[in-house]
C-alpha cells in the first residue's frame, strides 16, 4: 500500500523528523485559511497523487498569495494528474498539500528499502539529490552508499557517520543526521514499511537538514497490525476493478488485451498470461483466485472479469492443489447463472477432483468448452478472441 506525501510527512513529524509547516486541504475554499495559519509570504502547493514526477506535470507550484493557492486547488482537486509514472488517464488529485517555503542550500538523496539479497533494511544515500537515483547509480556509483542495518544491533553511530560523509555533511549536520537515523529506522520497523524515500533531503540555507519530500510504501501483509495506516488508505488512487477484487481477497491487475483470465496461484496466472501471448493472444487481466478459493470467490472473480467490456473470451486455468476443481466448476456455473454470459468460456481443470469438475461443466446447459490441457485451452481461447 502507498501513502500520499502529506501522510508520509505526518509520520515523519510523529518520529521527530524535520518537515515543513504544512496543512492538507480537500476543499479549495480552505486554502486561504491554511496559508494564513502556516504564515509567511510564500507557500508551496502540491497536488497529492500516488505517483512521482508531479513537478514536471504542473502538480507543484510556488505561490505568493493565499488566493493563488486557492486557484491552484480549484484547478487540481478532483482532476486527473498525468505524470511520466502514471498511465495515460493519470491519477485523481484527492488533496492539496500546502507548505511553508523552504530555502534550499543543497539537495541530497536518502532512502531505505528491504534488500532481499542481504535480508536487511538497507539505507541508500547520495550527495546527488532531487534527481533520478538510478541514473546516479549508473553514472557515478562512487556518489552512492548502501548501508545495511543489522536487525540485532539496530543502526549504529559509525553508520550514521559513514552516511554523513557520503552526503558531504559538516560536523553540525552530521550530528543532526546521527539523531535522525535511528528515528528513520524506528519508523521503518514500527510501521512495517517496505520503502521510505526522501528525494530530496535538503540542507537549508540556515544549514539545517530538512525532509522536503516523503514517499512511503507499506508491506500490505502487515496491515492487520497497522490500524493507523489502514485509515490512511486512499481508494481513489486505485483501479476500481482492482479494489472490487481486493474486497473478495482476489488479486487482480487490469491489462490491455481481450482474453479474460482466471487462474489459481500467482505464478501459474503469470505463466498462463505468457502462454496466451506465446500463441499470439493478449490477456485482459491477471487474476489469482487464491489457494483457498470458495465457490463464492470464484463467482465474484468471474463477475469482475465479465464486467470488463474488453473481454471477448474467458480462459479459466485451475490446477487444483488445495482448491477442489468441482467447487471451481460450481462457482463458474453459479456466476453465469447470476450475471449471464455473452462471451465464450474455455475451462481447463487439472489436479484435485478435476474429473468431477469437468463432468459438472460438461453436464451444464451452457456452452462452455472444457479442455484438459493448457496448450489446447490457451490456443482455443486465442482463436475465439480473434
Amino acid at each position, binding site marked *: 500500500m502507498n501513502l500520499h506525501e502529506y501522510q508520509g510527512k505526518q509520520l515523519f513529524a510523529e518520529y521527530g523528523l524535520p518537515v515543513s509547516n504544512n496543512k492538507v486541504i480537500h476543499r479549495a475554499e480552505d486554502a486561504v485559511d491554511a496559508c494564513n495559519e502556516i504564515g509567511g509570504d510564500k507557500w508551496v502547493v502540491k497536488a497529492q497523487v500516488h505517483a512521482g514526477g508531479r513537478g514536471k506535470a504542473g502538480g507543484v507550484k510556488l505561490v505568493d498569495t493565499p488566493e493563488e493557492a486557492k486557484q491552484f486547488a480549484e484547478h487540481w482537486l478532483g482532476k486527473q494528474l498525468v505524470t511520466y509514472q502514471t498511465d495515460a488517464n493519470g491519477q485523481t488529485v484527492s488533496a492539496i498539500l500546502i507548505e511553508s517555503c523552504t530555502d534550499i542550500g543543497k539537495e541530497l538523496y536518502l532512502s531505505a528499502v528491504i534488500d532481499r539479497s542481504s535480508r536487511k533494511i538497507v539505507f541508500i544515500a547520495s550527495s546527488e539529490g532531487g534527481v533520478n537515483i*538510478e541514473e546516479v547509480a549508473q553514472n557515478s556509483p562512487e556518489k552512492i552508499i548502501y548501508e545495511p542495518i543489522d*536487525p540485532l544491533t539496530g543502526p549504529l553511530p559509525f553508520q550514521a557517520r559513514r552516511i554523513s560523509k557520503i552526503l558531504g555533511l559538516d560536523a553540525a549536520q552530521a550530528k543532526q543526521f546521527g539523531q535522525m537515523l535511528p528515528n528513520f529506522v524506528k519508523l521503518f520497523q514500527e510501521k512495517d514499511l517496505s520503502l521510505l524515500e526522501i528525494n530530496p533531503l535538503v540542507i537549508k540555507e540556515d544549514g539545517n537538514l530538512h525532509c522536503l519530500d516523503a514517499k512511503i510504501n507499506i508491506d*500490505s*501483509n502487515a496491515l492487520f497490525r497497522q490500524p493507523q495506516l489502514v485509515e490512511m488508505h486512499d481508494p481513489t488512487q486505485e483501479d476500481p476493478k482492482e479494489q472490487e477484487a481486493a474486497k473478495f481477497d482476489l*488479486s487482480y491487475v487490469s491489462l490491455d488485451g481481450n482474453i479474460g483470465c482466471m487462474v489459481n*496461484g*500467482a505464478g*501459474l496466472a*503469470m505463466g498462463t498470461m505468457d502462454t496466451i501471448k506465446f500463441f499470439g493472444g493478449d490477456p485482459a487481466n491477471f487474476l489469482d483466485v487464491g489457494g483457498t478459493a470458495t465457490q463464492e470467490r470464484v463467482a465474484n472473480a468471474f463477475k469482475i472479469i465479465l464486467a470488463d467490456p474488453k473481454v471477448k473470451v474467458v480462459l479459466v486455468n485451475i490446477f487444483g*492443489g488445495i482448491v477442489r476443481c468441482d467447487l471451481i466448476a460450481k462457482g463458474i456455473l453459479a456466476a453465469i447463472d447470476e450475471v449471464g454470459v455473452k462471451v465464450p468460456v474455455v475451462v481447463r481443470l487439472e489436479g484435485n477432483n478435476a474429473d468431477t469438475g469437468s463432468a459438472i461443466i460438461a453436464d451444464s446447459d451452457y456452452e462452455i468448452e472444457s479442455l484438459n490441457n493448457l496448450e489446447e485451452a490457451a490456443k482455443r481461447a486465442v482463436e475465439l478472441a480473434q
Partner: protein
Amino acid sequence: MSILVNKQTRLLVQGFTGSQATMHSEQSIAYGTNIVGGVTPGKGGTTHLDKPVFNSVLEAKEAVDPNAAIIFVPAPFCKDSILEAADAGIELIICITEGVPTMDMLVVKEKIDALGLRLIGPNCPGVITPGEAKLGIMPGDIHLKGSVGIISRSGTLTYEAVKQTTDLGLGQSTCVGIGGDPIPGSSFIDILQLFQEDKETEAIVLVGEIGGSAEEEAADFIAQNVSKPVISYIAGQTAPAGKRMGHAGAIIAGGKGTAEDKIKKLKSCGVHIADNLLEIGNTVKSVLG
C-alpha cells in the same frame, strides 16, 4: 535418496486442529507421511486424527521426538510458531501460511540461520518426496518417484512442472516450493546445493518468476557449483512493470527483476531455458537425452 524429507521424517503439525491443517494432515497421512503429533495451545492432552495434541512444540519434542514441523497457523502468529519450533531444535521447519509480514521474516531468518536450522517458506506449498513423504498442500497423485529435482517460488506452477515430468515418465526425486515472498526461509541456492549432492537427482528444474534477483544469484551459483543439468522456466514474461502480480515478490521495480534479464543471465551460466510453460517437461527430457 532424496532431499529434506523421506520415510524417516517424523512430522509435527503446528496449528494442528485448524480446518486447513486438518484437511492437509489427513491427505499427508493418506500419502504415507509419518505425522507423530500436533500442537494447538490449550488443546494439549487430546487427540486429533488419532495423533496426540500438545500445548507446545517443546512438549511434543520430548514426547514424540519430531524432526520436522509444518506450520498452518494464521500469518500474525507465524513468527512465534517458527521461532517456537526453532527454540525446540526442530531441524526442518516448513511454513505454509501466506501473508507473513516482511519485518517478521527479517528477524526470523536471522535467528534460523544463527541456530543452523532450515526453514522452507512461508507462503509455499511445502516439500514432497514422491512415494515417501508429503509435507505440504500439493496434490500427491500427480507425483511420480523419479530423477528430477524441482525448486519453485510458486505453488501451482510447481504442480505444472511436476505433471509434465510425470507424464513423460521422468518423475521427481523431491519437489521444494520455497515460496513467493521477498524474504524466504530457504533460497534457490540452498536447495540447489542439496540437489547437487543428492545421488538420485539427475536434473534440476528451477521455476522462477519476475521480481528480485534470486534467479540471478542462483545462476551464478549454478555456474560455480552445480554440475547437474539445470532447466529453468521464468513466469511473468508478459507482466507490466510496477504492477505487483499477486506474490509479494513478483514485481518489476525500477526496470529490475524482468523475466528477460533473468533468462539472459541463466542462459549465460549454462542453464537450459524452457521458453514457455508447456515446454518444461520436454526440455528436461531433451537435456537428459
